[in-house]
């Protein structure tokens, strides 16, 4: 295990129990009435879900930056998150939210649709000559724009004000009122997704010197692309399905982890999963503790936190270049 994984793993061990106790009402296991029930049915699934969603986004971000050889890449670039969001919005639009499984299911279908579209494009794109990855990224951006436009269309055609506000609220991801049901949906998919990304790790290392060198080292670009579509699709799709859109995690986390590693993409994946889990867990605990009338949405909080931080990173990077 590398140093970064150890550091973020230890921080998680400290943060997790604290997150269970944190909230509008701090729980004292000895004196709070029904403490065991609140912990088991409300706090624990929410914290576990934060770990799952964060781990998936962190690993997906690290893999995307490695694949695109670009520190500004984000899992959203493949259009899978907007695809999942479109699916979820469709469920809300048709009022199919009475059963807790229907909305995540629709979101997963949306993510699957985006993945299938990407796979169809990938299946047709020539393997290599340096343009493969660039073409594919543009295709991902088109999938994202299309899904985004359709989502905007559904919002503007919402059947009533309630549906519209539900959609808009849902789009700003949150972990409020989640239960073990969501954990059951997201955990296996995210786990499989992270495993796929870890399998892709060595091939991502080969990309350090570019696509041609990777191919000369025996990497099959198409197999790598499939692993990426599968891995990012499952982690991000599952995350959006249970928590809505949570931005910035995939973008920021690899930057936090990279200085603690030797920089190889394969060495970033597991620590990024742990750091992503930590970031979402802490952010979700903070939004619960803040003394506000209504809880601030996790997606908004992370963007509020993430954007200035990212600006700081950019300024620091520019100083490094100067």
């Amino acid at each position, binding site marked *: 295990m590398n140093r970064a994984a150890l550091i973020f793993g230890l921080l998680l061990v400290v943060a997790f129990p604290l997150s269970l106790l944190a909230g509008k009402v701090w729980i004292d296991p000895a004196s709070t009435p029904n403490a065991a029930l609140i912990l088991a049915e409300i706090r624990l699934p929410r914290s576990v879900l934060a770990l799952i969603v964060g781990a998936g986004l962190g690993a997906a971000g690290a893999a995307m930056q*490695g694949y695109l*050889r*670009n520190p500004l890449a984000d899992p959203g670039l493949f259009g899978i998150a907007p695809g999942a969001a479109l699916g979820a919005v469709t469920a809300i639009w048709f009022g199919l939210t009475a059963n807790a499984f229907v909305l995540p299911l629709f979101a997963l279908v949306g993510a699957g649709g985006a993945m299938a579209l990407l796979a169809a494009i990938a299946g047709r794109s020539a393997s*290599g*000559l340096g343009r493969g990855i660039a073409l594919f990224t543009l295709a991902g951006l088109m999938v994202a724009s299309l899904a985004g436009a359709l989502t905007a269309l559904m919002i503007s055609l919402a059947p009533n004000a309630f549906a519209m506000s539900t959609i808009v609220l849902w789009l700003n991801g949150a972990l409020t009122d989640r239960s073990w049901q969501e954990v059951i949906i997201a955990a296996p998919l995210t786990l499989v997704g992270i495993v796929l990304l870890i399998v892709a790790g*060595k091939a991502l*290392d*080969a*990309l*350090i*010197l*570019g696509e*041609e*060198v990777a*191919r*000369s*080292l*025996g*990497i*099959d670009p198409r197999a790598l692309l499939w692993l990426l579509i599968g891995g990012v699709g499952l982690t991000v799709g599952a995350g959006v399905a249970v928590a809505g859109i949570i931005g910035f995690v995939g973008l920021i986390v690899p930057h936090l982890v*990279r200085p603690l590693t*030797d*920089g*190889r*993409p394969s060495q970033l994946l597991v620590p990024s999963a742990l750091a992503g889990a930590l970031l979402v867990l802490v952010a979700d605990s903070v939004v619960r503790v803040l003394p506000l009338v209504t809880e601030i949405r996790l997606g908004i909080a992370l963007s509020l936190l993430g954007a200035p931080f990212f600006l700081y990173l950019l300024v620091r990077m520019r100083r490094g270049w100067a």
Partner: protein
Amino acid sequence: MSLRAENLTVIGRLANVSCSLERGGITAICGPNGAGKSTLLMALAGLLSADTGRAMLGEERLVSLHLKQRARRIGYLPQSADIAWDVTVRSIVELGRMPHGDSAREPVDTAIAALDLEAFEGRRALTLSGGERARMLLARVLAGEPEWILADEPLAALDIAHQLTLLAHLRRQADGGSGVVIVLHDLALARNHADRVIVLDEGRVAADDIPQRALSEEVIAKVWGVAARWIGEPGAQALVSDLSV
């Protein structure tokens, strides 16, 4: 085992190119810009499939060789060396072991030592100078212990001292039994250091011979359209051109 191009055609870039290369020597591929040098090298590395014709390693077609197997036998050094992440020099050299599925210390140490990189192995790759970087990238290829080393303009952007150092390393590999194929723009380097030169012109083989014949003044006049003459002793010749032509 020979590396061959058999009537290779890549539309717009190579037209019916045939050549057969043996291990144990340095072959230079020369030609004007756009002559198809890099395309031929990539085809010989198995990284590009031809429209017609085929590239062969021994009796096997390169494109039908298993990817890892091909990668173990042919090391390829591209022209541009765009390093995406600031990893250590040793991490870059270790990439050469990827086709073998290991990061065996010994071949990596040997490659690092062969290119005098011991002092740099813990340094970050992006902090190296041009010459150090070129040596690191060649060490990456050597760490894979390939039978063939195919390098696209490995000497471009190097000063003369570093060019000669790198050529000496390549010569050592060739003397050790590897096949070395390099794309070269500098005709004097090709004439003085290669055992054989293939001259490409508009995608066709214009000459394929020992350097003295393949890079004769007549061939240079015909292919590059430059009136030039060789001066100096064999093995240390310089090309001088008459600018009035």
